[in-house]
C-alpha cells in the first residue's frame, strides 16, 4: 500500500490560508489502512480545524467527505458539488489523490494534508516500513523476495557493503541491512549461489530516471473503444 502520514495542523492551517469554506476529502483505500486519511481521520481533521480556527478568532466552515478511491476520477464525480462550493480542498489522499482532484476539477484549489511516504506494509501495530521503490524492472526473483532497491540505503545490487554490522545498516541501527536479510534468506533456502553472480548495472530507464512513466495496455484500450 501507499503509506502516508498527516502534516501538522499548523501546516494544514497555513496551506488553507485565507479560504473560508474548507472541504476535507478523505480516501477509503491505502491511507485509510495506514490511518492517515480515511473517513475517521478526515472527520477528526475537520473538527480540529473548526476548533483551531474558532480559537484563532476566524472560525472557518470546514466540512469533510470521503471517497472510496481518490486516485480514480470516476469516484470523484460524486463530490463535484462539494468541491465546487469550497474555497479550498484539503486532500487527505496520497499525492496521487491530490493530483487526481486537481486534474479533475480545473477550478478547484487543492492542497495536501498528508506527506506521502512510500510503498510499504505494516510490520507491527503502528509501524510501517518501505518495501518497493517502483523501479519498473522487478528483480525480487534474484534476491529471495527482498528488495535491495528500496531497502538497501545505497540500492546496491551486489551488496552488502562494508558498513553492514550486526544485521543493521551503517546508516542507522534502526534500519535492517537489506543485504544481510537477503543473505540470510537465500542461505536458509539453499540458494546462496544466486549471490555469486554479478548483477549488471541496472536499467534505471524503467524507473523514474527515464522521465515520468506511463503504462499502455493496448488490449484493454481496444476493448474500451469497442464499448
Amino acid at each position, binding site marked *: 500500500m501507499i503509506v502516508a502520514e498527516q502534516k501538522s495542523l499548523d501546516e494544514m492551517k497555513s496551506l488553507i490560508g485565507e479560504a473560508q469554506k474548507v472541504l476535507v476529502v478523505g480516501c477509503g483505500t491505502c491511507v485509510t489502512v495506514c490511518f492517515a486519511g480515511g473517513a475517521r481521520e478526515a472527520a477528526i481533521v475537520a473538527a480540529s480545524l473548526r476548533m483551531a480556527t474558532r480559537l484563532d478568532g476566524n472560525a472557518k466552515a470546514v466540512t469533510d467527505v470521503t471517497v472510496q478511491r481518490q486516485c480514480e476520477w470516476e469516484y470523484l464525480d460524486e463530490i463535484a458539488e462539494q468541491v465546487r462550493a469550497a474555497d479550498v480542498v484539503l486532500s487527505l489522499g496520497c499525492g496521487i489523490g491530490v493530483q487526481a482532484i486537481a486534474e479533475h476539477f480545473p477550478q478547484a484549489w487543492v492542497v495536501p494534508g498528508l506527506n506521502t511516504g512510500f510503498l510499504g506494509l505494516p510490520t507491527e501495530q503502528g509501524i510501517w516500513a518501505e518495501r518497493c521503490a517502483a523501479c519498473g524492472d522487478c528483480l525480487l526473483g534474484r534476491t529471495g523476495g527482498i528488495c535491495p532497491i528500496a531497502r538497501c*540505503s*545505497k*540500492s*546496491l*545490487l*551486489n*551488496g*552488502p*557493503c*562494508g*558498513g*553492514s*554490522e*550486526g*544485521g543493521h545498516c*551503517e*546508516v*542507522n541501527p534502526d534500519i535492517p*541491512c537489506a543485504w*544481510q536479510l537477503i*543473505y*540470510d534468506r537465500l542461505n536458509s533456502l539453499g540458494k546462496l549461489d544466486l*549471490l*555469486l553472480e*554479478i*548483477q*549488471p*548495472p*541496472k536499467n*534505471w530507464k524503467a524507473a523514474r530516471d527515464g522521465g515520468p512513466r506511463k503504462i499502455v495496455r493496448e488490449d484493454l484500450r481496444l476493448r474500451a473503444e469497442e464499448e
Partner: protein
Amino acid sequence: MAAQPSSNGYLVGSNLERVLRAGHFAVTAELGPPQSADGDVIRKKAALLKGCCDAVNITDNQTAIVRMSSIGAGAIVVQEGLEPVIQMTCRDRNRLAIQSDLLGAYALGMRNVLCLSGDHQSFGNHPSAKNVFDLDSIQLVQMVAAMRDAKVFQCGEPFKGQEPRFFVGAAAAPFAAPVEFRPYRLAKKVKAGANFIQTQLIYDIPAFKAFMEKVRQMGLHEQVYILAGVGPLKSPAMARYMKDSVPGLWVPDEFIERMEAAGAPWADIPKDQLSKEDKKARADAWKQEGICICIELIQQVREIEGVAGVHIMAIEWEEAVRPIVEGAGLLPRPDVSAAPAQEAHHD
C-alpha cells in the same frame, strides 16, 4: 573480457603494478585532501609521503564530507612526483560523470583507481543531499576494467581514440557482516576485474588469517594482489571508538590495553592538573605506541601467504607513515621504473 596487457607486458605500467608484478611487498598510503581549495596542503602531505610508499590513495569526499576532489588533488600529487590511486565512489556520480572524470584523470597522468560504494551521505556534512548509487562498487570495477580491456564505454560504444588504462582496485572488508560471505564478495570483485584489493583496517590478526585462508582455498590470492589495511592508533579513546563504533573493525583488547599502558605515567594525575606539556608528552607516548603496534601488524600480515603488500591509513597523520615504513624494514622503496614485466607472482 580477460585483462589485456599493453605492448610492454603491463596492464597499465603504473608504479604500483610494476612493484607488485616484480614481487615486491608493496606499500600504499593515504592522503586526505583538504576541506579547502588550498593545493599547498596536498604538496606538503605529498612531501611527507614521497619515497616511503609506492602509490598513495587520494580519498573521494571521505565520510561524505566535501573536500578537494580526488582527481584534482591527484593531479597535484602527480606533479609532485608521487603516484596517486584515485578513489572513486558511487555515491556522488552516475556512470556518465564517473567515466568522464576517469577520462580526465587518465589524461592528467593518473593510472590507478580504487572503486568504492562510498559512505552514505548521512554521515557527512551534507546529510540532506540526494545520493546517486547508479552503479555499485562491483559494477564500477567491471566498467573501469572494460574501459581498459574492451576499450568501450559502459554503454558498449568504443572510445574515439585513446582508452583510459587504469590498474583497477577494490576494497574488502573481511570483518563486516555477514563475515562468511566476505571471501565470496571478494571473489565477485576479482571476477569483475579487480587487479588489486586494499582491505579495511586489520587489527585482529588471527581473524584476518582465517579470512586469508579461505581466500587461498578459493585461489583468489593468485588472481589479485591483496594489500592488507593497517593504521596507527592515536590514543586509547580512538582505539575504543574504532572497536565499538566502526562497522567491520575488530580491535583486540590487547591493543587498547597497550595504548592505555603507554599513557600510564600520566594516568594518576587528575585531569585538571595535567599541564600542556604533560598532555603533549602523553599524546607523543600514545602515538609512539600506535606506530609500534602498526609496525608489528605489518610484520605479521607480511608473513601471511597471499598478502602482497600493506595499505597504511594514517588518517590526517601523514607524518606517521615514514617511521612506520622504516620501522617495518620496508625502506627504501624499490625502483621499478625500468623493470620488464614478469609473470605475475607473489611473495
